[in-house]
């Protein structure tokens, strides 16, 4: 018997898509029965009360969670987000309901053994509810009380050897696409790079010292499966700079209809016979593909690396052999100054262990941003305020036509004194010798 009536939420149990309401209810039931005899460390009715407070929000049209307090584990400034209910008398089970962010393995592969072990901690010391995963990528444990935080941290770091993720004004848990583990498009080992940099910057991840959050994300190719360019301050996007490799026999198989274009992604509709001219050649943004006499050719010098031809004929076209990544900086969501996409900083960099080039770049950017960034100002906003040239200056990168969509519209150029012959120091009396007052 449910603790609270939830007539509104109950309507979310119908329909085909997995129902989070049904799932929370099943967890509530398991907690109530507690057949395994677990020594539950937070109130048994936590799931019932979560449904109760959510039902109240559904009828009020307003949240019932209070502004988070400062909670955490000793020596860390992030990884735990304090959360309290604003109706604790009605819903005592969720009066204290903190979130714990747990660092996820890159690519989000798991063994069931590991998953079961972390779940064991969470059913005993938490609500038994999670997000798999949070938007940044962490495993998110939803809902526990303050006395459990050190205990959870101890068990995570001792029993399953995993750490907390980031929250607050620090390096957020870096994330990568699955990269070389299962993708033929990966231009570098996204998981290795992400893991190495995560380990290198544990201090920055756990102890907030930045103006605001900072995110690294690692995409293996321009398809952008982890959305690095849309949401990370430092976006590493795989790219190649030599020729796309072509298997002409496979091209013929696509043209002949033996292989489904786009790896079968359009199978749900009859789009007609595959038309290589219309579907590949004409859509190429670099206009550098030709299909003549049954042969596909690419003028790679004009290739924009958009991935369309490769995505459309993955068995015929393969990324080049000279692989690395482009680095783009400054993406963010709207708060505060409106949304920003990452802007290109380094057109090509080899991404190889020990990733020293990447680290040097990151540390130069951090030094500048920590010096100049205002409170709650993302890197992209600092870049806009101080100018892209400043970013080039602090990273020692030469300006390149690839840095812009088009050159500036106005000639208000901030020349510096040392860029002008004879500098800016002049004598007014000398000037007056040539020009009367």
């Amino acid at each position, binding site marked *: 018997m449910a603790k609270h009536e939830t007539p509104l939420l109950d309507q979310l149990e119908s329909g085909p898509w997995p129902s989070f309401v*049904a799932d929370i209810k099943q967890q509530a039931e398991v907690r109530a029965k507690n057949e395994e005899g677990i020594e539950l460390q937070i109130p048994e009715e936590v799931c019932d009360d*979560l449904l109760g407070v959510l039902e109240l929000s559904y009828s009020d049209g307003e*949240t019932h969670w209070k502004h988070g307090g400062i909670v955490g584990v000793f020596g860390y400034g992030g990884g735990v987000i304090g959360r309290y209910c604003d109706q604790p008398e009605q819903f005592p089970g969720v009066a204290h309901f903190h979130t714990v962010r747990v660092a996820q393995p890159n690519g989000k592969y798991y063994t069931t053994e590991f998953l079961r072990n972390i779940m064991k901690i969470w059913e005993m010391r938490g609500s038994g509810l999670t997000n798999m995963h949070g938007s940044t990528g962490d495993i998110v444990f939803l809902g526990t009380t303050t006395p459990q935080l050190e205990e959870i941290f101890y068990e995570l770091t001792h029993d399953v050897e995993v750490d907390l993720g980031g929250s607050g004004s620090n390096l957020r848990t870096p994330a990568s696409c699955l990269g070389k583990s299962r993708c033929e498009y990966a231009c570098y080992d996204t998981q290795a790079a992400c893991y190495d940099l995560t380990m290198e910057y544990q201090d920055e991840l756990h102890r907030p010292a930045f103006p605001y959050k900072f995110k690294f994300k690692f995409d293996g190719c321009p398809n952008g499966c982890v959305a690095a360019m849309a949401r990370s301050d430092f976006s590493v996007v795989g790219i190649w700079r030599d020729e796309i490799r072509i298997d002409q026999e496979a091209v013929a198989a696509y043209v002949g209809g033996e292989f489904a274009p786009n790896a079968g992604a359009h199978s749900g509709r009859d789009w007609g016979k595959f038309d290589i001219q219309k579907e590949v050649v004409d859509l190429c943004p670099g206009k550098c593909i030709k299909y003549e006499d049954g042969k596909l050719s690419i003028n790679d010098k004009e290739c924009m690396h958009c991935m369309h031809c490769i995505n459309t004929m993955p068995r015929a076209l393969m990324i080049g052999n000279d692989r690395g990544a482009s680095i783009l900086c400054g993406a963010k969501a709207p708060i505060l100054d409106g949304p920003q*996409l990452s802007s290109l900083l380094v057109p090509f960099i080899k991404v190889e262990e020990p990733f020293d080039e990447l680290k040097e770049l990151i540390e130069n950017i951090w030094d500048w941003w920590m010096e100049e960034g205002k409170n709650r100002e993302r890197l992209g906003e600092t870049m806009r305020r101080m100018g892209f040239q400043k970013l080039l200056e602090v990273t020692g990168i030469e300006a390149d036509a690839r840095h812009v969509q088009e050159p500036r519209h106005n000639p208000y150029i901030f020349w510096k004194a040392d860029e002008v012959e004879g500098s800016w120091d002049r004598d007014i009396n000398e000037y007056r010798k040539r020009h009367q007052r």
Partner: protein
Amino acid sequence: MAFVSSGYNPDKPMENRNSDIGPRKFDEFLPPVIKKNFGAWKYHEILEPGILVHVAESGDEVYSVRCGTARLMSVVHIKEMCDIADKHCDGYLRFTTRNNVEFMVDSKDKVDALKADLLSRKFNGGSYKFPIGGTGAGVSNIVHTQGWVHCHTPATDASGTVKVIMDELFDEFTGHNMPAPVRIAVACCLNMCGACHCSDIAVVGIHRKPPLIDHEHLDNLCEIPLAVAACPTGAVRPSKVEVDGTTYKTVAIKEERCMFCGNCYTMCPSLPLSDSEGDGIALMVGGKISNRISQPKFSKVVVAYIPNEPPRWPTLTKTIRTIVDVYSKEANKYERLGDWAERIGWERFFEKTGIKFTKHLIDDFRDPAYYTWRQSTQFKF
């Protein structure tokens, strides 16, 4: 409920402390066929919606079955995933960046049994536990935030809106019936924890009323200079207010400058702005992240406000359905929603979808607004 210690000693917090150990290394968790062929994959195909095969240079194959999930999931549910992975996949599974779960097997013979098992599992109430889909030219799972389930600043719910949208677009999740992938995201406020500002369809919770001011408590709970500095439009300034003969240090708000971003509330709990009538949803469309064919681009606001209508948000789902249907009918193969809208022109987008264009859709926020106004007589009647 006796307290059980893990071994942590509060008197000596540094004793046996394992600090800064980071995540577990990914290669511990790779299924053998994945580990063996790491970096040596040749090509992939989507055999049917939700079922992929990746073929390695060695000739090895891995079959992945992708299932949607609610993201908010219980230990019971995750253990059920583990049971499935133990039974069919030698104890391995993975999650995708769009909150799907993937079960992988190393031979085609194992796919049918896995598929049948997944589709046979349902929650009480009848919804699928593991619907298969989310690949190719369809709608993948919705990336979303916490909403009323767990967040202190939301203007709408996230888990609930996702549930009703995905119920509506279930055929598009289980099918490849779109011109190109359609990526949907839900952010329950403008913080956009999930960064949904580059999605084909973005559902964004918005407030429409300036913050309330809890004058008698503000100075105790907030740093006034931080609250003042937090406002991007300079609408907040320090002030004093007399209540029942007592003077309090507080802030004043120039209400016409407020754009309801909630940043002041994040800095100061005495400035709440949520309100059942004021809060609701802005609908944005046409963004993308991929560099494929066209460049990544932002989503654009096409409906300035849709009221919160829990539990099933009918106006929201109906509007999304209309956009998806018109796009699906009109766009070319491979053409993303935003590319289609740009090709036909936004005036045509509003005409074809029947969405009313209003003054609220004209940008008026700082310099970038200017770049969205039309400086041309090249337009359509």
